[in-house]
């Protein structure tokens, strides 16, 4: 590159300022919520007076434990189905260059382009009026999977593009059946991508509101509890809830980051 002239330095400086402002915009509300969750006065918490009361209140809320369990169930169910479908599809698409496989790629990415609320109401209407299934955890898992599978697919596809399928061919030349090849060769190499997809789709299912809301009837989940609380004006317990969920999400994302960094094969990861 040519020497950086003053004009270019000005542009880079401006872009850096914009990026820093964006991080501040994105993270300040999250950290402020965390700060509020341990403050006795939630309206003007300066100077700070610490309290653990909001966490105590959250813990004795009867709905909280049921909601947490249900959200975990929806998250795990969504993640299991999404990861299974997405892994199989990504392998199929990358390994067997069938003509018109582009159609399948479009199909797997289509849910990204459908508004969540439309997925919510259309599955509600279909289940209720055509299949006669009432809203429950299972239908919430199915509807969430129809959305999250796209994210799982993208995560896996992005990392498998650079996987060397010759490993698998070698195994098969030596007589390994497809399933054994997957278990002993493919999976040990691609597991960071698969786990990454599982974590992402777990978080999406766990936190989903618009799809879940229309599919769980009156069963409480953490997002629907938060919605109920918001409707009647914010109570400080909600800050505690938000802080716990945010901490969990960031912990999981940090795990994904480590997976990408130390990933067994560094599969096509945009990294140094």
């Amino acid at each position, binding site marked *: 590159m*040519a020497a950086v002239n003053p*004009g270019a330095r000005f542009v*880079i400086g401006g*872009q850096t300022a*914009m*990026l820093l402002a*964006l991080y501040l*915009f*994105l993270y300040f*509300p*999250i950290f*402020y919520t965390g700060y509020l969750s341990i403050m006795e006065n939630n*309206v003007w918490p300066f100077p700070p007076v610490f309290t653990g009361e909001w966490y105590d209140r959250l813990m004795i809320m009867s709905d909280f434990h049921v909601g947490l369990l249900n959200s975990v169930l929806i998250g795990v169910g969504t993640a299991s189905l999404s990861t299974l*479908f997405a892994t*199989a599809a990504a392998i*199929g*698409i990358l*390994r*067997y260059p*069938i003509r018109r496989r582009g159609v*399948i790629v479009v*199909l*797997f990415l*289509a849910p*990204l*382009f*459908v*508004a*969540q*609320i*439309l997925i919510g*109401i*259309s*599955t509600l*209407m*279909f289940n209720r*009026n*055509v299949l006669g299934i009432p809203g429950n955890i299972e239908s919430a898992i199915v509807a969430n*999977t129809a959305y999250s*599978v796209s994210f799982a*697919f993208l995560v896996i596809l992005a990392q498998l593009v650079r996987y060397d399928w010759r490993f698998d061919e070698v195994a098969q030349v030596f007589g390994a059946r*497809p399933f054994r090849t997957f278990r002993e060769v493919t999976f040990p190499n691609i597991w960071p991508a698969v786990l990454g997809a599982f974590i*992402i789709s777990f978080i*999406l299912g766990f*936190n989903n509101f618009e799809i879940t809301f229309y599919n769980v009837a009156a069963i409480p989940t953490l*997002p629907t509890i*938060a919605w109920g609380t*918001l409707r009647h004006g*914010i109570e400080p317990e909600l800050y505690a*809830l*938000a802080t716990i*969920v*945010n901490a969990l999400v960031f912990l999981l*994302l940090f795990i*994904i*980051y480590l997976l990408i960094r130390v990933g067994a094969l560094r599969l096509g*990861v*945009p*990294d*140094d």
Partner: protein
Amino acid sequence: MKGRRALLLDPRVRFATLVGPGALFIVLFLLIPLLSIVVFSFWRTESYELISDWNVNNYEAVLGEWIYLKFLLKSLAMAAAVSAICLVYAWPCAYLIAKHGGRYKLVLVLLTAAPFLTGILLRITAMQQILGPIGLVNMALMELGAQPIQVLMYTNIASAVGLIYLWIPFMLLAIYLSLFNFNFELLEVAKVNGARPWRAFFEVTWPLNWMGTAIGIVLVFIPTFAASVTPRFLGGPDGSMFVNRLEHQFGSAGTWALGSAMGVVMCVASLAVIFVLWRTVRLRRAGFTGAGA
């Protein structure tokens, strides 16, 4: 036995076995329910029950009556404005990370994407603590003895800020991924040949990354157009959007057929946006660079 073995080795069979289950799942649980609301939108509702009495009254109401059309236009305008702001703001940020991020690219991008995963409701809760009447901004102003900023408290502007907050990561990610695959040396070539930086940007960088940008626009436009939580909790008395009217049909009103028609209208409007952008992508691929000469 030999036939079965040959069948198992056929790439097409293996492809179908791997891809089939997921594809079938998406067709069954995404596409068919969506098609079912197209059918319901031509029926009518009577005391909370759908009746298969074919008619187009629902569409006449949604597209003909001002109370619905007004909200449709308002939602479209909001989605267009939010997408435009996200586009203008995310581009320089994505460009900086892609070009000068060095070995920190991955961390910098993951940091912008992370808040998206904390969930819509919790993020809007957080936003209320900043912008609301007892939020940080207003309370700080009151402590200082200044006038409150009315425009940020339960208005459509607050709604827009909330929507940008929710969806700008998608725009940034889409543009970043496009720039990540962009060969920055092309820019140097343009400059060596005498193009000024701005001209090089609009003649080389922008058109070659238009497809990623268009994907970013769609990924922001669609959820913004369909936002319900944000206008409800940040928008205040005049914040109601088309989707809030739609939700009403599925809630207390119980007019499922009308609600379905509203859903179909939303879907068609989103598809129209995708189609228009898709056309521009194809034109540019064919060498069309817009107004540039």
